[in-house]
């Protein structure tokens, strides 16, 4: 009852303030000039990114440096997580010892197999069509990371590791992705362009498919980096609690 009164007071105050504010508030109907510039120039215009998707062209072209540093923040956050849970060589070998077994009933596992395949296809589509439709490397990578998570839930993490996707491989894939981003950003310097320049160095179209210049490469590499980075983290999180307490030397 006491909580309910607090809730009602908050609701009343919110609605009252909202009513008071609404008398002098006109909802926003026009575009900001900067937004208009991006919408105009995304596909046509002198500063074109050759991509009809304005959001992706901002993320990887107009504001590419911002995204590069945000990727650096992502990189450091994942490295920090891996460092907090670091294991010695013997310990990580011991963490891999276990039987891949079905932890959930048969129908759940069968459905998981189908859904994992679908998630892989959908996440690749999100990432590789990022220059045409809503989506891109970040979203595709986050969707990709759901697939190993589902396998861990339905089959346990040993199934994933027995099939070749262990923590080291995930970190290697992630490093390949980050290296690809860095190399794509440095490529324009070879032909006397600017750092992270898109047009006219990268081809806007290939075989009739619009690529958006460098956007498709950035999206592909970011997809790998985000997906594999989260996979490595999930693999570490799924180490059983008893094993980890043994490694740390704390009692139950």
């Amino acid at each position, binding site marked *: 009852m006491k909580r309910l009164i607090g809730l009602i007071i908050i609701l009343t105050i919110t609605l009252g303030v909202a009513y008071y504010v609404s008398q002098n508030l006109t909802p926003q109907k026009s575009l900001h000039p900067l937004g208009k510039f991006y919408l105009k120039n995304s596909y046509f215009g002198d500063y074109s990114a050759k991509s009809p998707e304005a959001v992706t062209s901002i993320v990887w072209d107009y504001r590419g440096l911002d995204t590069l540093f945000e990727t650096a*923040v992502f990189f450091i956050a994942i490295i920090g997580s891996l460092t907090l849970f670091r294991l010695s060589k013997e310990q990580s070998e011991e963490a891999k010892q276990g039987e891949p077994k079905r932890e959930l009933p048969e129908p759940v596992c069968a459905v998981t197999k189908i859904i994992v395949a679908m998630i892989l296809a959908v996440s690749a589509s999100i990432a590789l069509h990022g220059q045409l439709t809503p989506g891109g490397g970040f979203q595709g990578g986050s969707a990709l990371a759901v697939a190993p998570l589902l396998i861990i839930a339905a089959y346990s993490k040993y199934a994933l590791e027995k099939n070749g996707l262990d923590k080291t491989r995930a970190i290697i894939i992630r490093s390949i992705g980050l290296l690809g981003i860095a190399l794509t950003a440095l490529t324009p310097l070879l032909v006397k362009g600017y750092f992270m320049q898109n047009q006219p160095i990268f081809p806007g179209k290939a075989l009739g498919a619009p690529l958006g210049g460098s956007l498709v490469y950035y999206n592909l590499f970011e997809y790998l980096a985000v997906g594999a980075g989260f996979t490595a983290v999930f693999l570490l999180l799924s180490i059983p609690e008893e094993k980890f307490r043994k490694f740390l030397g*704390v009692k139950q």
Partner: protein
Amino acid sequence: MISLLWSVTIVSLIVTLIISVYGIAAKPNLVKKLIALTIFGDTANVLVVLLGYRVIYPVKPPILPVWKESALQSFLNTAVDPLPQALVLTAVVIGMAVNILIAFAIIQIYRIYGTLDVREAGRFLPNLLRRGE
């Protein structure tokens, strides 16, 4: 009516921000602090997206539907601002990575100290520092 709904949206988001800041400061449990932090981050993201929204009908996503220069004007009249969306897009994934880092730290604190309460965990810390001298 529309301006009332618009202001209800904005004010309720700001109230959510205030409540989540209260949660971060006042709750002693680390997991509850993390939950409040994620609510804070998501609300901030929604507020930023709201900055670029246009209260018109019809309103379209910032993707060029027809690749002709003649279609550009009607596109400009209906599309929302792409810049806040682009800023939020990266912020969501970065926020998730930073949340994972905090979650890892909380799990490790629980394993070592056996408690999630900051008042109890704080009592262990001076002993730990003294031992290292």
